[in-house]
């Protein structure tokens, strides 16, 4: 690879200095980011203005240290490259007023720039994701990866984890945006997520490698995710600003925000249902998202194919999809539960059903989905 011969990519000193400065101002940014709308504005300021806005009593001292900053002070981590907006390999979609000036990248800058140039879809969910949301996010990511789309997501929460795992299951690359430094040992649940993400995809961060995640970093990572993607899909969201932040950030930079519908009584779907009511495109699965992107589905996920299913199994699958989703309730009508249990196990073995919380079964694919009737015209971005 020419990349390797030329040595690892490295951002210019001025941009490295920027990441150092953000680390110094972490506490102030945490405080200010309680107002999520204002965070992108703050991050769009240039270095000096940022120090004056946030430095408080430390302004003078920080400016002095900033002036004599040497990039060698930043610890270098193995396998981590840096790229800044002055570099040609900086992902095109990220260029914009509020986007990060530079990124720390694990998995290769060249790969990031290649993935960023292709179609990218962001998947976001609720902090309190339900088992339904997790399963749906996984299936969505799998379908998107099969359709040749890169999945981007934050590196926090169950929905994001499911999205990364789903895409990875079919060999698709993903981009994970980390709220802290790349070299900080993540919580146990996320350690393997990041390790496996960089096998085919990239993990990116805005902060120097050895810094722990910060609250503002979480909000900032959502803006990076939104900027990387042409479409942001909200799987589940409650109706508050915190949960709807990915949608607002994506809209602010003119990207399409799509939402998946949920039960009207579920608090976890109030946000997404509200988005739909306000006119966001409704997506049910990966095919709908591919249509939004104006792409033809290239391959079909065999797992979701329920044609030719035994009528006995189809009957059980349809009842599960209709909400009769526990073994106890399915068996109640029948005399003996054994046949129902056998059907449930067979469906699970076929990959059509999964287990949810509280002994519930979740359909992993729509029970009956009419074949797509050719691409519709691409809806206008909202």
């Amino acid at each position, binding site marked *: 690879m020419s990349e390797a011969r030329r040595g690892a990519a490295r951002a210019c000193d001025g941009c490295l200095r920027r990441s150092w400065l953000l680390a110094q101002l972490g506490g102030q940014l945490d405080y200010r980011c309680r107002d999520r709308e204002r965070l992108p504005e703050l991050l769009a300021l240039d270095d000096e203005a940022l120090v004056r806005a946030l430095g408080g009593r430390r302004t003078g001292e920080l400016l002095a240290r900033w002036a004599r900053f040497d990039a060698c002070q930043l610890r270098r981590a193995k396998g981590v490259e840096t790229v800044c907006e002055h570099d040609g390999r900086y992902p095109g979609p990220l260029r914009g007023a509020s986007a990060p000036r530079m990124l720390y990248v694990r998995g290769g800058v060249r790969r990031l720039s290649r993935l960023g140039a292709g179609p990218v879809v962001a998947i976001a969910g609720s902090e309190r994701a339900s088992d339904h949301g997790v399963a749906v996010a996984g299936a969505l990511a799998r379908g998107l990866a099969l359709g040749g789309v890169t999945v981007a997501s934050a590196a926090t929460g169950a929905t994001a984890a499911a999205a990364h795992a789903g895409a990875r299951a079919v060999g698709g690359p993903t981009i994970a945006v980390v709220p802290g430094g790349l070299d900080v040992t993540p919580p146990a649940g996320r350690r393997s997520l990041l390790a496996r993400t960089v096998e085919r995809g990239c993990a990116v961060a805005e902060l120097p490698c050895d810094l722990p995640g910060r609250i503002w970093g979480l909000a900032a990572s959502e803006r990076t995710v939104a900027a990387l993607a042409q479409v942001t899909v909200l799987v589940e969201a409650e109706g508050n600003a915190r949960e709807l932040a990915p949608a607002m950030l994506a809209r602010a930079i003119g990207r399409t925000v799509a939402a998946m519908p949920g039960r009207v009584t579920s608090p976890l779907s109030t946000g997404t249902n509200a988005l739909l009511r306000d006119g966001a495109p409704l997506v049910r699965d990966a095919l709908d998202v591919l249509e939004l992107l104006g792409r033809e589905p290239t391959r079909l996920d065999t797992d979701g194919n329920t044609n030719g299913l035994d009528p006995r199994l189809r009957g059980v699958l349809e009842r599960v999809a209709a909400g009769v989703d526990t073994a106890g309730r399915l068996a109640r009508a029948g005399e003996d539960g054994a046949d129902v249990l056998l059907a*449930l*196990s067979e469906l699970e*073995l076929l990959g059509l059903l999964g287990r949810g919380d509280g002994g519930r079964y979740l359909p992993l694919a729509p029970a009956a989905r009419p074949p797509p009737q050719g691409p519709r015209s691409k809806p206008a971005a909202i």
Partner: protein
Amino acid sequence: VLARAHTFTIDGLHARHVVVELDIRRGLPAFAIVGLADAAVREARERVRTAILNSGFEFPGRRITANLAPGDVPKAGPGLDLPLACAVLAASDQIPRERLEKHALFGELALDGAVKSCRGTLAVAQATSHAGLRGLILAPDCAREAALIDEIDVAPVAGLAGAARVLCGGSPDRLPAVRPRRAPGRTGAARARPGRARPDAGCRSVAGGGEIPGMPDLAEVRGQHHAVRAAVIAAAGAHNILLSGPPGTGKTMLARRIASILPPLSRAEAIEVTRIHGMAGTLGGGLASSRPFRAPHHSITAAGLVGGARRDRVGEVVLAHHGVLFLDELSEFARPVLEALRQPVEEGRVAIVRAGSAALYPARFMLVAATNPCPCGYAGQEDRCRCSEADLTRHRRKLSGPLLDRIDLAVSLEATDTHAADATPLLSSREARGKVTLAWQRQAARMDEAGAALNGRLDTRLLRRHAGLDGKCEEMVRQAGVRGLLSGRGQQRVVRVARTIADLAGSAKVRPVDLGAAIALRPESSLGSRAA
């Protein structure tokens, strides 16, 4: 003048033979006891002295030295009162010494000379037989328990005077009339959480198959047919089972009835249970007739669960031997407590080693655990569950791991309308016990030569030999492995449960319908996968 008396001290589940050597010499009046006696034994001096005087005998006013041999075994408990008193009488020539050496004595003395019962009678009776002694003199209360050992003559005596009469060649006192028996499991039930446990919800099944009034019966469980079927399967193979579900769905109610559908104890098992519970003092007397049901509160310590805190106390797992150990609110138990369960669940015994003592106790029980699906109890109901992702992860982490790996069956209970038309009891304890007993017999007939007679206790080698999967089932298991639904160990568990379901149905081969049910009832192997 030297006299010898034989008695026993309780050490774990065993009665250790102790010889009381008592010597009376001229000197200042004194009564010294040597030989690692604990406080209760040292206090025996005052009881012995007063009891002898109050029984119309003479207490020698000379120097008395009692030695408890062997000298390196700590002696505990008040059971040494009677032998000490008789040795004093023999050494002062008030009763014949030769006859004293042929009897074992065990009992506590009251100040008026009455003999009181002590814990561990059956173990003492067995040890008497092992020591080659002819007779055992003890309190009438525990004579029935001791009489279960055929090889010895049990001589119940009401007081020290009676003991002296027996040792002079007279006849023992008569056995008291049989008292109405307390339920042996009662102490366990009474210890369960107040408010939810009924005080009389102690234990259940009884040899002979009759229904005992006041015992919980499976027929009281309305609806929940899926869970009741799973409970019957668990009982039929002695599989460990996990019940989960929102609060108020009857997890505890069902768990308390599982012991009532287990087959009655065999005589050998009953003697073992009697011995253990006699040691703990939780038995009314006579042979245990029902399987133990132990339900310790979740505040229990590891020492309380497996034993080891005191030499004369065993843990709850040992008390649950041949019965059911019920852990309600499994996720509330402390982590070290659950870890301590691994050896007994896996091996059916528990080895306790402490400074100066090591003991191996039997602990072959069926584990029944109940838990809420999440801290608030309503996981899966999006509009009710208020647990954050972190809460759920913590809850799952608590439940996952090595212990859950040993649970064969998991079933979720859901809220039902108990007044609905279909909320009828699935079957009564008597019917269920009939099915389970048949399944036990089928398993025993198949695995005659193997030590483990129940599917839940099959090891890998025996399982392979006895599983009897047909070709379609082999394919299903393989498929489940490929799909990642079942780990290697998970496949074994599923096959074990499928074997039991086939045994319940009386099928020689495991059919796909048995295996399908076993797969559907498998514990959530992917509990932690959401976070990965």
